[in-house]
């Protein structure tokens, strides 16, 4: 199922009181090679193994009510991704974290969770920005070079068709506190349902225009280090973002 369809399905259901856990998770190891659909299935099965009182969507094919902030593509590690899990009853976030971690496959881990009021805005809709860390020989220089350019045209394959697209406007800035390691760089990029740039396209632009060889770029380690809401540069980490309560809008 597409993320957009899923979102529609999750929000259009007849309403039932939900107790939402907003969980921050990391992924590394073998699970890095999973596509987003498989990743979602892993979390669903873990929650079922943990026997958590998950809410299910209505309809012919009920799915656990779990919403991921932003799809995590194949090959991308994460240190801070988010998902909202709707439960039937209030739940202690520490217990939620422990139970999930007991049941998740190696490499996936809930770092922390908090119970939030049921949000009006889907967690997907508030994401605007992500930080990524790339690790590869000489990548800092290549990335500095990329930021100096006016355009970075790359070829993207969407719906089976090749399309030229400029990703330069989606690269926001190199993170200042990221150290000076020449073989690692961390930066802000647009992310979310409105504007989004895939890390593999950034890497391919580095090999196309910024002097990295393709093999090095393709082998770069990619870690998503943070997800944020708000208009860049006035952004907030997802779990520090104020929540508009669903119930305030129902009357």
């Amino acid at each position, binding site marked *: 199922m597409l993320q957009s369809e899923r979102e529609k399905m999750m929000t259009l259901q007849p309403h039932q009181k939900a107790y939402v856990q907003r969980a921050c998770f990391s992924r590394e190891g073998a*699970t890095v090679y999973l596509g987003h659909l498989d990743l979602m299935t892993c979390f669903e099965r873990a929650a079922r193994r943990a026997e958590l009182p998950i809410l299910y969507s209505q309809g012919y094919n009920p799915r656990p009510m779990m919403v991921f902030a932003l799809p995590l593509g194949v090959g991308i590690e994460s240190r801070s991704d988010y998902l909202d899990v709707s439960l039937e009853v209030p739940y202690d976030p520490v217990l939620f974290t422990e139970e999930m971690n007991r049941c998740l496959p190696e490499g996936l881990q809930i770092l922390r969770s908090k119970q939030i009021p049921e949000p009006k805005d889907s967690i997907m809709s508030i994401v605007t920005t992500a930080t990524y860390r790339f690790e590869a020989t000489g990548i800092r220089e290549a990335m500095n070079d990329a930021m100096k350019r006016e355009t970075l045209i790359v070829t993207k394959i969407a719906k089976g068709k090749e399309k030229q697209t400029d990703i330069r406007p989606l690269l926001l800035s190199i993170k200042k506190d990221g150290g000076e390691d020449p073989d690692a760089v961390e930066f802000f990029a647009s992310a979310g349902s409105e504007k989004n740039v895939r890390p593999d396209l950034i890497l391919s632009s580095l090999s196309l225009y910024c002097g990295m060889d393709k093999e090095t770029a393709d082998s770069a380690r990619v870690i998503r280090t943070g997800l944020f809401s708000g208009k860049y540069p006035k952004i907030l980490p997802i779990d520090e973002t104020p929540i508009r309560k669903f119930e305030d809008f129902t009357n």
Partner: protein
Amino acid sequence: MKSYPAPLSKSDLMSVESPARYVGGEFNAVIKEDMMEELEKTGKTSYVRFAFCFPDIYEIGMSNLALQILYHVLNESAFVACERAFSPWFDMDKILREKDILLYSQETKTPLCDFDILGFTLGYEMCYTNVLQMMDLGKIPLLAKDRDEDDPIICCGGPCAYNVEPMADFFDIAMMGEGEEMILELCEKIHEYKQSKDTDHPMTRAELLRNCDAIEGIYVPSLYEVSYHGGALVRPVDDGVKPVIKKRIISDLDTCTYPTAPVVSNLRVVHDRSYLEVFRGCIRGCRFCQAGFIYRPVREKSVDVLCEQGRLLEKNTGYDEMGLLSLATSDYTHFPELAENLLSTFEGHHTSLSLPSLRLDSFSLDLMEKVQSTRKSGLTFAPEAGTQRLRDVINKNIKEEDIFSALRLAFMGGWSTVKLYFMLGLPTETDEDVLGIADLAKRIEKLYYDVGRETGRKMRKLEITVSTSLFIPKPFTPFQWEPQNTKEELIRKQHLLKDNMRSRNIRYAWHDFDSSVWEVVLARGDRRLGPVLLEGYRAGHFFDAWDDHFHLSDWEEILNRHGMTIDEFAREFSEEETLPWDHVSVGVSKKFLLSERHKAHEEKTTPSCREHCSGCGAASFGVGECFAKREVKADAAE
């Protein structure tokens, strides 16, 4: 838990289809950490290291119940550490060869050549070349005679192991029958062998194989000599070797260990659900069906055990679907009780039951309404033949009245999709039988609209799918002597059917001919095929089970070059000749199979084991349906 990364660069992994196949890390996978520490410190371990090898891609292998059962049995034991390995797809195969990376296990990424034993499951003949691919990529000499004390022992099991002759050159050991007990007995022998290596009198590989021959159900091909002059003859090299290999079975499935915490793939696989095995064997005795004979006698699990296993499976896997597994689920004595019990266990959990191989009646229709998440999906029937005459020949005990009364109920209940499975090329088949398939489909179509008229309801569009596969004479069935139709004849029959079954409501789906032609060669083959398989593999043929990658003409050419023809294997076998698999006993006597064959040609049916014991020989195992019946009768007589 410590993780063991794959010995591949990220860019290599990112360049292949579904890289998650090659990295392991699944929930419930077992890594014996004490063994890994021992290996790290001393470079050695006393554990028997077992690689369970599935000769097809990960998604298919992870849907295999035998893998889950034996993985669990082996890892439960204190002296064995079992890991899994699968056939890498062409893209990964290429990378492994180019970069000289050895095929490795999922769990600890250990190269296959570093295991003590490799166990291949042979579920279908077309996977044979993938066995060679996996051994080759694991840097293991392909021919058993070329392997020495430094190489792993290579064994196999599964339905194709009963006639392992075409693969006999490559395997050290074949296991006949159900493996839960036998595989541990085998590992004990390997444990002794391994321990003897550090003593003054290390056991040789030849001695080990002799020791293994002492285990019932185990076949060591190298201890038999063969001749193929006027029939096949496979006999022991000396009196110390057993002349007949008798298959093993598990007497009591209730007390036999079952994997209630199977490995859960992170990647969605072919059958993405948990499995509850309900019983083994089949009471029916359809004469073409190998499974119906090799898994005799019927042994059921009790409802209590099944419900407990079902409850644990759901909890330990998190799957939202559970499949009841057996050869014919409706034949389970306490089926209604089991189904209702499981449904109440799953109440409120959004877990559905998948019920393959159901016989349709009012109960099962009712049940399907209850369990199906997507309502009104297809109804499936397998009449196998188009006329009652031919159904009597094959002993497919399904009557047209039953199909029609079940369909009437189903159509009244709003079902509108019907799938019908048939076989073409069955023994004694005439054009009338082939046309009978079209006739049956058309009469089902008519019934649908009749029901619409009678009830005055507006009916949805009807969809009937007719699928035909091709009859393949298999060893250990009453049809093991029967010829296979030629490809030309099969194509003619297929066209005959297609031309006489035109309707907008009927869709015709057919099976690839080429693979069926080759399958008969492998199924009824003998040791002369070893060099053929080796040459084919060396020429780049593997993944033969994948129609797109199977090239019959190439194989036929290789076969001919080795002085054989397809017809030698597809011909009618004489009842007098010794068959290549006559040294194996599945518990059903050759005499019985022969009498069944004769009854087939007389168009006479044989009742199910539950109605009447026909004396097939499986009662000699002393357990199961036939035996239980006798006990009851004996009690009543007293």
